[in-house]
């Protein structure tokens, strides 16, 4: 904040407020009308704004002692935010605020109240600070990552033709919650449906010779996992094996250069080139994404991210190739960058070097 010349940093998204104030207000995530706002200003001003029904929770668990609440139906949280910025002496300050999340109507009110202040995007500050994880964050990511891979291994072990994608989904949710996940999302795509990138499970019955794609996104202690495996019910065809070999080779080439200092566009280009020389055009325009308090954060591994990989970043790599109307292939694991290379958060327990074969 200070390095970039700002007097205050204001967050409104559930992830950045949680990162700043240390407490996640549960209804904030599902109900965007219950604004929760964190404010850091100068050397020693911090405050959190919450909706009145969540005040007790915030008082007990927030990192900040300065908690203010507003009535959702009669008060505008932007007025309270303006009051607090005034208290902090910033009526004409330079304020970094999440303009990529704050609703336009709130912003209109804020600039009415503080016409002398200047407001800029806070996005890059949070993106960059959050990219590099603390030991505690890495511990939490490892916990949820390993939990997720364990569950996928157990699920794939128990699949049999004749059950539906939704039944598999319900089993995933059950196992994840039993292992302690707070929430879980998943994609289960079989046969033709494996060729849809975000394939929500349906009543389709899993059949012999289906390609089966399972992606699980866990949430534990506010940190996220994202792991994907591709299997074939029965034996893969030569075409399937060939496609898979290209994706795995592309992934291994990327792993061979994955270390601090490598430029992200170079890593991405290595992936794209390896796919193309194997006759495949990657379906997505990114190879992976940072993971932490949110499932997608920086570093996005794509050509527009012109900065180097650094120690203690955590991200996924997810080679993915969809043939719409036919089938789809996708493997995704979580990585942690070390001082000299990387370590695998997932990928040891249930390797997907070959397409996983499900006995029929």
């Amino acid at each position, binding site marked *: 904040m200070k390095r970039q010349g700002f007097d205050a940093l204001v967050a409104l*998204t559930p992830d950045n407020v949680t990162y700043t104030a240390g407490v996640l*207000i*549960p*209804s904030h995530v*599902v*109900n*965007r*009308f219950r604004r929760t706002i964190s404010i850091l200003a100068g050397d020693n001003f911090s405050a959190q704004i919450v909706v*009145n*029904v*969540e005040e*007790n*929770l915030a008082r007990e668990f927030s990192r900040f002692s300065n908690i203010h609440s507003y*009535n*959702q*139906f*009669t008060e505008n949280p932007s007025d309270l935010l303006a009051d607090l910025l005034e208290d902090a002496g910033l009526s004409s300050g330079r304020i970094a605020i*999440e*303009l*990529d*999340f*704050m*609703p*336009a*109507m*709130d*912003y*209109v009110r804020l600039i009415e109240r503080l016409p002398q202040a200047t407001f800029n*995007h806070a996005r890059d500050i949070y993106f960059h600070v959050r990219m590099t994880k603390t030991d505690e964050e890495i511990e939490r990511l490892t916990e949820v990552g390993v939990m997720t891979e364990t569950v996928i291994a157990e699920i794939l072990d128990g699949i049999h033709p004749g059950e539906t994608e*939704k*039944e598999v*989904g*319900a*089993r995933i*949710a*059950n196992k994840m*919650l*039993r292992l*302690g996940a*707070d*929430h879980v*999302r998943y994609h289960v795509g079989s046969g033709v449906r494996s*060729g*849809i*990138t*975000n394939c*929500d*499970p349906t009543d389709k019955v899993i059949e012999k010779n289906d390609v089966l794609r399972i992606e699980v996104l866990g949430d534990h202690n506010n940190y996220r996992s994202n792991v994907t495996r591709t299997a074939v019910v029965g034996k893969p065809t030569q075409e399937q094996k060939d496609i898979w070999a290209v994706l795995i080779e592309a992934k291994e080439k990327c792993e061979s250069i994955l270390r601090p200092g490598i430029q992200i566009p170079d890593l991405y280009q290595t992936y794209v080139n390896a796919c193309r020389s194997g006759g495949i055009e990657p379906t*997505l*325009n*990114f190879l992976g994404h940072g993971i932490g308090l949110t*499932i*997608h954060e920086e570093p*996005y591994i*794509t050509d*527009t*991210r012109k900065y180097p990989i650094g120690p203690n970043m955590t991200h996924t790599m997810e080679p993915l190739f*969809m043939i*719409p109307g036919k089938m789809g292939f996708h493997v995704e694991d979580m990585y942690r960058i070390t001082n000299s290379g990387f370590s695998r958060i997932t990928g040891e327990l249930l390797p997907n070097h070959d397409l996983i074969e499900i006995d029929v």
Partner: protein
Amino acid sequence: MRNSVITKLVAGIRDASLDAVIAISPENFAYITGFIVPSHPVLRWRHALTVITAEGKNAVMCVDMEESTVRERMPNIDIWVWKEFSYDAMPILAKLLDDLGLKNARIGIEMDYIPAGDMAMLRKHLPNARWEAAEQLFNKLRMIKTPEELEILKNLSRITDSSIKTALENVTAGSTEMDIAAAVTSSILRNGADDYKFLIVASGERSQYPNVGPTDRILIEKDLIRLEIFGMLSGYHAGICRTASVGKPTEEAEHIWSNLYECRKIILENIRPGVKAAEVYLKFLEKFGELALKPISFVGHGIGLFLHEEPYLGANSDTILESGMVLGIEPLAYVEGRFGLQCKDMIVITQDGCQILSDVTNTNNLFPVN
């Protein structure tokens, strides 16, 4: 595309003297198209939107990542695609609007959703357009459910209620909150919901906090358990809450529960077309006041594509209730520092009263857990 919704919207657009509206939130996108773009609610920058004009023309835009999903759902519709990471959603939207002949038009957009930064960019790209807040237009229309929406909500209410019942029947003293969570979520998915949201499992003294998720806490005798979950189906929500007692409840808990049960009865008796929403809340307060506990500022709310919609049943709500509204009603009591109880049901307002949609679990008494 849902033609019945588009017809209602076009009338609303004309009434408001607009030339077009843009639906940019996941719920209003789903209201018009009938489906949610999977990552739209999860990753806030992945804009998907629809534009409806006063002439009834429409257009759809989504991020490249979700193009295949949107095309599968709407095979015959022209789709505008913007590229993730190039931050060009707003420039493409501006082109789309220009293409529809709207660059000098009066356009409604959800000012309570579109991020301030995107709105500024949109203004820059279409400097002659006039922008109006459209959220109230959507909120008003969405209050009254179409027959298709009502069918989904009825079905979902039963799924959700019976899953809660199953979960509570399958735990005992010695089980953990996590066991309840696993049982209710797996049951809700097996029963046909396609997702769930906002699972609250709060036992013992944790039951005093309105919105807390499950932990490893072990259930012991005399615990109260507040179990709330929002089942989801096709983007719609059914929020239901039950309170259980492990073993025989204390007299105090029973006393509060019987008051809440009476409150619920009063709410149901007073809900009918023509009544002001605030009146229902005030009637509730009269009864709840006997407990001398602090009430929250509403006792019910509309529900549908968003988990809290208009109308709220609160002291400041002057909405007149109408037939076809679906509400979650939730008398609840928090005894600070000790415990909390809540009973939340789904109802639909009919021609002459209301009908309970969550009619599976008996709520006359605290749900008995062994």
